[in-house]
């Protein structure tokens, strides 16, 4: 009988646990980049879809054709010559926040985090680890990160324009 009670309590707790896990979503997050050697080579994407769960999973997806450059000609070269966006239209990231236990989703504040996961870009998948922050603001959260990508790691050959780009991740979730 005691066993049965324990089992029942266990079941109830796990259901409660499932409900407690919250999911934060955006369809219009922001990712921008700038070439390390040339400020003019920069673009912004305001159509990043991303999801963060309170147990530490993070995913994002973006479309290469959604990057907006100030110069239309640059945008054409980026899509056709360097990223081949007809063949590889999307980039995906799937990872975890390794220190999620330090983030208190019910208390406002800015929490430093480390994110690790697989980034697929231009048909190449690579494990990356980046530092960032999660800001809890009422029922919203804002995730930010800055990191550098080496283009040749993803088989992107744009040496004439840029070898490395600084990526800025800035997404507000609800």
């Amino acid at each position, binding site marked *: 009988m005691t066993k049965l009670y324990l089992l029942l309590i266990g079941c109830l707790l796990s259901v409660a646990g499932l409900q407690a896990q919250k999911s934060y979503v955006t*369809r*219009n*997050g*922001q990712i921008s980049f700038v070439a390390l050697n040339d400020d003019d080579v920069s673009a*912004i994407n*305001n*159509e990043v*879809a991303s999801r963060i769960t309170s147990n530490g999973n993070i995913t994002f*997806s*973006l*479309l*290469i*054709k*959604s990057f*907006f450059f100030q*110069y*239309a*000609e640059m*945008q054409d070269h980026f899509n056709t010559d360097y990223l081949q*966006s*007809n063949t590889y*239209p*999307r980039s995906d990231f799937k990872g975890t926040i390794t220190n999620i236990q330090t983030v208190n989703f019910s208390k406002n504040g800015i929490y430093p985090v480390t994110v690790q996961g697989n980034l697929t870009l231009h048909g190449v998948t690579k494990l990356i680890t980046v530092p960032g922050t999660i800001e809890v603001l009422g029922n919203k959260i804002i995730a930010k990160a800055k990191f550098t990508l080496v283009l040749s790691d993803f088989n992107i050959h744009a040496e004439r324009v840029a070898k490395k780009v600084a990526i800025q991740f*800035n997404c*507000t979730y609800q």
Partner: protein
Amino acid sequence: MKKTLKYFLILILFVALVAAGFVVYVYNKPHRNVAKEKAVTLTAEQLYQAFKDNEQLANQKYLDKAIELTGRIAQITTNQQGQTVIDFNTADSTVTINCTFKSKPALNLKMGDSVHFKGICTGYIPDMNVVMNNGVLVK
């Protein structure tokens, strides 16, 4: 001798003009104006269904194309840059057509309205949305 020099100078001037023209062209080439482009006409449901059925085929057909859609508004928001974004319903309640508008639509739109608009399709994010931008209303 003098004649050769003259031709040489004219040639240099010509090359410089071409180079300058090229630079001006590169820096001033305008972005696409969807309002003036000929578009493929579809409904929001049809566009999503095409991507859901076969993403590769739909990419070939619709990626980077001007598309004229009719859709029902699920949500109106602004993105982090302050641009108006409208999500349109599809047959799947969790998936939308997500269109960022070029400028704030003049009409006073609200949830549930049926809207006729045009934009550029940039692709599909499974379980989330088909993405469009450069949206403009069509009368």
